[in-house]
């Protein structure tokens, strides 16, 4: 069974290498935040914060947090208000809000550092206020990926480790001031592969779900080189793990082949299911209880898996009845009807870029934001290497682009993860 999975995965990556470049994904959205974040922006957001990878020779070449004005009533709508450089280039990737929404934690996959930005003192002008640099020393983990708010704490899922830079990794728990509290290894027994990617919590059921990708040794390598390495090709995640949230102990390992990435619990009251997309198999998976037992089931297909569209990010609507899916290779944004989560139905698709990665939506679902970059060494090249954040209107039938910020022209780098901001969230 495992060798079959590895075989499919290897084939998928080989095809990707042949046709272009592959992908990763990310966490975003007003509808996809930690349930412990109470101050959701339910009206018009004012800002989109974009965590951008530095590009050598472009601007200062460093990773930076970019603030874009997205309020249509503003005179500077659709333009960059400012950026905060961290002074290094560490494969900037994902961000997360603290539970009080006063800070953004952000990091890169090439270093065990976490940057903390104050977005409350002046939401239009974030400030870098702290760097948490002890994760490797404390845990041995490398490549912090997901930053998930718990009350007064941040749970950080890493992708790799400093020992062999493979995919066996774990989670680190910090308090909101950046003091290390504990670490939790991803299970390597009971069917676990030890890999990590995303995490998401359902507090009403006391469960934490994690997914799995691959380690530094793979995600930092050029793809063409990677796919020729048979041993490296075996080292991708094929599991999800259900944890007892309170005890932070694994309860069950699910076989989910093909690198399951983003995890979204339905925000709808009374729903207790989560959905994820497996990048390399292009499948949607549903996790829910059946006769009291948690199960993971394949429930849908994204595009034509034979063409490896590579789903890289998903965004669930606030009522849990719709799901946006971005597929990197074909630059397509797709919408699935989740009225029956056990049978998602594709109802819309549109090419929104030559390469697309992250997708975030406003709370009311009327505005959708899309960025372009996956990883520095995995993005497309030449004219296909568009780097942008694009804003769209969604009227329930069609996406209409309303602005674009060209990150290359603005000398900002590769646009990756997004979080929304509002002037009204300024601290008193």
């Amino acid at each position, binding site marked *: 069974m495992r060798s079959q999975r590895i075989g499919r995965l290897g084939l998928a990556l080989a095809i990707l290498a042949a046709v272009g470049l592959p992908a990763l994904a990310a966490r975003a959205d007003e509808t996809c935040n930690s349930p*412990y974040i109470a101050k959701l922006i339910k009206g018009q957001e004012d800002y989109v914060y974009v965590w951008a990878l530095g590009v050598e020779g472009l601007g200062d070449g460093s990773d930076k947090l970019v603030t874009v004005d997205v309020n249509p009533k503003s005179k500077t709508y659709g333009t960059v208000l400012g950026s905060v450089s961290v002074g290094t280039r560490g494969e900037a990737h994902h961000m997360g809000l603290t539970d*009080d929404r006063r800070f953004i934690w952000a990091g890169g996959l090439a270093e065990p550092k976490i940057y903390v930005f104050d977005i409350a003192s002046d939401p239009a002008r974030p400030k870098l206020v702290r760097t948490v640099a002890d994760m490797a020393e404390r845990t041995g983990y490398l490549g912090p990926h997901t930053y998930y708010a718990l009350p*007064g704490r941040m749970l950080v899922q890493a992708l790799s480790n400093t020992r062999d830079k493979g995919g066996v990794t774990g989670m680190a728990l910090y308090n909101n001031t950046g003091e290390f509290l504990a670490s939790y290894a991803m299970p390597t027994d009971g069917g676990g592969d030890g890999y990590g990617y995303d995490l998401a919590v359902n507090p009403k059921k006391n469960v934490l779900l994690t997914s799995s990708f691959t380690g530094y040794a793979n995600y930092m390598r050029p793809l063409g080189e990677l796919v020729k390495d048979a041993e490296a090709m075996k080292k991708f995640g094929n599991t999800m793990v259900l944890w007892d949230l309170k005890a932070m102990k694994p309860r069950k390992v699910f076989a989910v082949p093909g690198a399951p990435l983003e995890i979204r619990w339905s925000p709808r009251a009374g729903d207790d299911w989560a959905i994820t997309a497996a990048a390399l198999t292009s499948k949607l998976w549903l996790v829910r209880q059946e006769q009291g037992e948690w199960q993971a089931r394949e429930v849908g297909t994204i595009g034509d898996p034979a063409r490896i569209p590579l789903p890289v990010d998903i965004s669930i609507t606030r009522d849990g009845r719709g799901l946006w899916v971005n597929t990197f290779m074909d630059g397509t944004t797709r919408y699935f009807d989740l009225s029956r989560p056990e049978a998602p139905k594709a109802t819309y698709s549109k090419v929104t870029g030559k390469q697309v990665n992250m997708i975030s939506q406003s709370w009311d679902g009327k505005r959708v934001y899309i960025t372009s970059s996956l990883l520095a060494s995995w993005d497309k090249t030449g004219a296909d290497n568009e780097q942008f954040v694009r804003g769209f209107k969604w009227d329930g039938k069609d996406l209409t682009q309303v602005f674009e910020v060209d990150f290359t022209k603005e000398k900002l780098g590769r646009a990756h993860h997004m979080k929304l901001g509002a002037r009204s969230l300024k601290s008193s």
Partner: protein
Amino acid sequence: VRRAAATALLAWLAAAPARAHEPALPPLGFEPPAPGTYTLHRIMRAPAGEVLDLQGRARPLTDFTHGRITVLGLVYTTCVDPEGCPLTLPVFEAIRTAVGERPHLRPHVRLVSLSFDPERDTPAAMRAYAGRRAQPHTSGVPWYFLTARSTRAARPLLDGFGQDARSVVLREGGGTRREISHILKVFLIDQDGYIREIYSSTSLHSRTVLNDIETLVAAR
């Protein structure tokens, strides 16, 4: 809807003394791990500072965060969000009742409701809010109601707890109403003054708090 829910909750609270032994809250949606089978980390130290008791006397907050296991809720008395401050009252009532039924816990636990709206929540306002809850209880578990001398005096306490609070003015029925935008936080503090758990509206339940208290007591 929130107004209606708040009204229903307040009505429930008014009738609470007559239903002291009834289940106070909806059932927990899961079976929590047994006490002592998990770790409650030292998240951070509870802050120190000056507070006012119901008689308006200045007291160090450490008097209420050391020596016993403390369940401390940061609240303001005019909050109407049913998932906010009002939620602490039935949960604290249930905790007090449950601890009272466990003699090995009784001497080790206290409850604290600390206002972060001292301009409106004067000691007199806190007395009205507390009612009979502040009086000695058959459970033997004290419940203290505290406020601060001023907003300025409360600020370092809020910062120390990591509690955000922002004043907002809402227009309603031709008038205005001031509310404090915040997320509910209730703190479990050990006998040495370390915060060991933080509950939000999605995780605050008397059963889990009780298990956490048992876990701390067993670890002594």
